[in-house]
């Protein structure tokens, strides 16, 4: 199993998001006007209003852009070999940084525009599964 850095708490904005990951739910927010808010916060980035509601995403999205990291000196990633990082546009209208896993060769098998679905990746250490994405079809 991978051993990615875990979120650290107390941290008041992202805690409910990560509690969702434990239940295999990818959670996002909307403000009272229906604007999608992400990353999690306690205020609307459109209006400043504090009245936000939580929703659960279908986990389906599209690759907006990506890169394949060939060199990372951080101990958590130094042993991984080449791995992808990507911005995923979720169908509900929010964009998140993540990674696309489960491909033979990330340098050739990923393209912008591909459809992906979230998967909650268990970690060697730490209680929070990390939302990653896999190609669909």
């Amino acid at each position, binding site marked *: 199993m991978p051993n*990615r*850095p*875990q*979120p*650290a*708490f*107390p*941290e008041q*904005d*992202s805690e409910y*998001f*990560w509690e969702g990951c434990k239940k295999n739910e990818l959670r996002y927010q909307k403000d009272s006007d229906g604007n*999608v808010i*992400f*990353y*999690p*916060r306690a205020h609307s980035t459109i209006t400043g209003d504090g009245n936000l509601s939580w929703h659960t995403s279908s986990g389906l999205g599209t690759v*907006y*852009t*990506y*890169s*394949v*990291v*060939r*060199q*990372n*000196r*951080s*101990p*958590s*990633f130094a042993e*991984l070999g080449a*791995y992808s*990082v*990507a*911005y995923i*546009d979720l169908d509900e*209208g*929010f*964009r*998140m*940084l*993540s*990674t696309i896993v489960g491909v033979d060769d990330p*340098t050739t098998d990923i393209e*912008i*525009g591909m459809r992906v679905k979230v998967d909650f990746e268990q970690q060697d250490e730490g209680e929070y599964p*990390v939302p990653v994405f896999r190609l669909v079809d």
Partner: protein
Amino acid sequence: MAQERKAAIGGIYEWPKRVDPSVSSMQIKAASIKAALDDAGLSWADVDGLYDAGDGEGGGGGLGLAAYLGMNPTVIDTTQVGGSSYEFHAAHALRDIASGKCKVAVTSYGSKAATLRTPIGTGGPRGGGTWLSNMENMYGSTLISNYAMVAQRHMHQYGTTTEQLAEISIATRAHAMRNPEAVQAMTDLQFVGVREISVNDVLESRVLADPLHLLECCMISDGGGAAVFVSPEVAADLKKKPVWILGSGEATKYRENDGDITVSAGAQSAPIAFQQAGITPEDIDIAMIYDSFTITVAVMLEDLGFCKKGEAGQFIADGHLRWDRPGLTINTDGGGLSSNHPGMRGLFLLLESVRQLRGESTSQVENAKLAVAHGNGGLLGATHTGGTVILAAD
């Protein structure tokens, strides 16, 4: 709009060495300030404004630097917005000097990134437990991969190629080979091949984060320097001709749902600066653009208005970025790609602009009268800042 000349850069200094274990960052800052004041013909006691990005051992910024220098400034500005901090300092100095708050202000930089082997581009997550790090640290995004994701999207959206982007590396290397300090830098940093480079050299260098190759990434060096900002009254009586700050613009941008990451904060800061300066991009003789990576320059050429969004690849493909060819010239000192990048390169954009407008560059563009310096701080494609400064010869 009439051009107003309310503040100028009166003195500059660039630390000549790129690997220097014998000094501290604070020593580089202090010695550079002294040398820049000497360049202007001003004295230590003349300084009444201090701008600082919080670099140097201790990182004291407004609290620490004045004490170390032994100065008592009455304007203290510690704007820290990454590598573009020095464009912001120039902008604020223009504002503060124009309003009469100070007459002789300094900004300085010192860094030991090479000696300390700081993994600026390939380091891992920094600090956990914030609203942002809790959402991103787990994915192993490096500084380079942020820029790489912009390049990947730019290529997808507009058909930009590595062959086109390579022209930026080629031009800056050509300039570096004419700059003895840059040649020494590449030698001291053990570059493979201290010589002019070709498209093939770039294509054949290893990929650090797709699609960016090693020769599309800036070096990591020691270094530093200083600039002295002065009022028109002070500017009238300097050792050298002043370089006027005509206009400035500031902006920030970040990951946004539905945002276009091929557009940088520069698209917001540049028009503000050009409007204040009363000129257009067509009037510019020389552009100093933060070349952290090739893609940074390509995006900025578009956002500064030298070509339309998406057309940078074609704009640069004919090789005119070199000093000795007709058309827009960039980064005549060799840039971050081939002269120096201690971490926050924005200062050097101002310094080389001043050298060009004084006629002192090692790759001097004939009759250079108007320059733009555009710094990008932070992570292009993610949270970053853009600082645009328009400069004019006396």
